């Protein structure tokens, strides 16, 4: 039973992570792969608040999400001010830099990891209700993002992605929108982090590195970028698939790399053979037509 709970838990968390990541890179067109670092911030903040300050779990988790959101604004503001391309580098630097810092600090548990995180089972009757709440939050995330992308905000996002210069010349604050998109996506990742921390009760910096970025990217690309249900399907399928490998009883030293190869290999296959993903239409990957890029005035 515990195994099934854990699997459902992970699927729900990855649904939150993949859909919010797709919101940032697919819908928002913001190039960043540092989504896991906001997952980490949410997880560590929530865990440390509960561990060191005795904050109740239902308060610690939202606090983690808020801190992740604020951190994402702090990363996005200076780099987006210059150009969208710098967000990518700034966020990777932030991701690896923060993980490096976590490895070196005692109060985050260092590279060995943070243990003894207050969990739910001690306070309530088992894991069941916690899993239900997480699944509901995952469904809520999907519905929220579906509503936003279908609203007037979603229309503005599309326009911004198509041509941010024409967009701002109409009086739209494209910069604030980009920060908003990034912050909302990152805040949701932070929420997933808090939910993870108090269920699995162990955090290590290695869980939030580039490998995690690759996994999320795979879910989004394989499922179908810039669609709502694509990343959901991607998250469920790709969470289930590696589980199948674990049944092979391989040693962990083989299992990790094999999963990694599976994830990255799938991205490559889909990028070239089926760029639109399992679900989704439209030419997501095509660059802007040359004609339109020509007279871009870079101030």
């Amino acid at each position, binding site marked *: 039973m515990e195994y099934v709970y854990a699997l459902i838990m992970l699927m729900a968390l990855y649904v939150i992570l993949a859909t919010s990541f797709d919101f940032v*890179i697919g819908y928002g*067109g913001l*190039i960043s*792969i540092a989504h896991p670092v906001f997952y980490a911030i949410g997880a560590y903040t929530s865990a440390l608040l509960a561990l060191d300050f005795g904050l109740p779990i239902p308060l610690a988790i939202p606090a983690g999400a808020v801190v992740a959101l604020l951190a994402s604004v702090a990363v996005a503001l*200076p*780099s987006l001010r*210059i*150009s969208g*391309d*710098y967000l*990518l*580098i*700034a966020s*990777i*630097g*932030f991701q*690896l*830099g923060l993980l*490096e*810092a976590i490895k*070196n600090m005692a109060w985050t548990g260092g590279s060995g990891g943070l243990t003894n995180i207050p969990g739910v089972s001690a306070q309530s009757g088992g894991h069941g209700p916690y899993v239900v709440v997480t699944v509901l939050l995952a469904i809520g995330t999907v519905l929220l993002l579906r509503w936003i992308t279908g609203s007037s905000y979603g229309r503005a996002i599309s326009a911004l992605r198509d041509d941010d210069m024409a967009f701002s010349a109409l009086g739209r604050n494209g910069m604030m929108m980009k920060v908003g998109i990034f912050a909302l996506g990152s805040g949701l990742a932070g929420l997933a982090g808090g939910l993870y921390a108090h269920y699995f009760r162990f955090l290590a910096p290695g869980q939030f590195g*580039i*490998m995690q970025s*690759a996994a999320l*990217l795979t879910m989004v*690309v394989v499922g179908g970028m810039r669609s709502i249900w694509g990343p959901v399907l991607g998250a469920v399928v790709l969470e289930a698939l590696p589980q199948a490998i674990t049944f092979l009883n391989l040693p962990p*030293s*083989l299992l*990790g*790399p*094999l999963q*990694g*190869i599976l994830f*990255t*290999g799938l*991205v*490559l296959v889909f*990028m*070239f053979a089926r*760029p639109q993903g399992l679900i989704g239409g439209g030419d997501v*990957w*095509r*660059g*802007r037509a*040359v004609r339109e890029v*020509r*007279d871009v*005035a*870079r*101030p």
Partner: protein
Amino acid sequence: MFSPLILLQILWTSLATSSYLVLFTVAFALVLKVNRIFNFAQAATMTVAFYAAYTLVSRLGLPGWAGLLAALAAAVVLALPLELLGFRALRRRRASSIFVFIFTLIISELVAYIAMLVYGTWPATVFPSLFWPVRIVAGVAISEWDVPALGATVVAVSALFLFLRRTRIGQSMVAVADNPDLAEFYGIAKDRVYLVSMIVASLIAGLAMFLYGTRAQVEPTTALNLLLFAIAATIIGGIGNLGGAILTAVVLSLCENSSILFIPSAWQGFLLYAFLFVAIVFFPRGVRLPRRLRLSRSVPTPAFAPEEPREA
């Protein structure tokens, strides 16, 4: 603690360390300048080059020069499909920059995982031992690694600049870097230029990784961190400015090595990310030196090119 001798020693060590860092940076900056690709796959090239040398020298006991050749060959062997099957196909499709970037990143991760599967996650080195005999010259310890490494770097960088200035294909690379459309108009085959640029950059990265692997331990994910250094140096040096990138690599190497005087060594790795962040926030367009101080003759692309050609 801050005796002149220590400072001199740090200066020398920084210079020696900068040998491979300069080469990593040059390779990255070259592909960015000519191919206009933010090539994270260089980490894959570096990983492949290292493990080729490692296999031949450390595992099979062949001499060092065979390892170097293997590193160079492996780097080129990876560059060919990368350019011919990957980048070329993406160009044909007019893929967006995020697509190309994700492609390069995924390639470097895929290679890292394959390396983990084959070689495990334990740190490895090209030669079984990292120890190099040391000679004391005027109070400064100079290892037998330092001089050949610096020599190789100087030769490689000089050869690159000669190649870009003197050979026809090198000049074509500069022309494509300046204006790909115009270059094509003058009959320069862009595809060939991009391929040569990838090969040259891979050779440089392969050499650099061989040098690194003879002096420090390498894991499958080491290359990605080394690449971040190259990116920071490229940005601070001013994108498109090879000379600036080289100079920045040396300066950053000095900062990193002298940091042991001020901060605990465990935090030395953190410094790199600080560089990267400072580079993006404060020097997104590179540090502008006064014109007469610039090393390279290459003019940075103007921030804004007037869209209409002037006729009058």
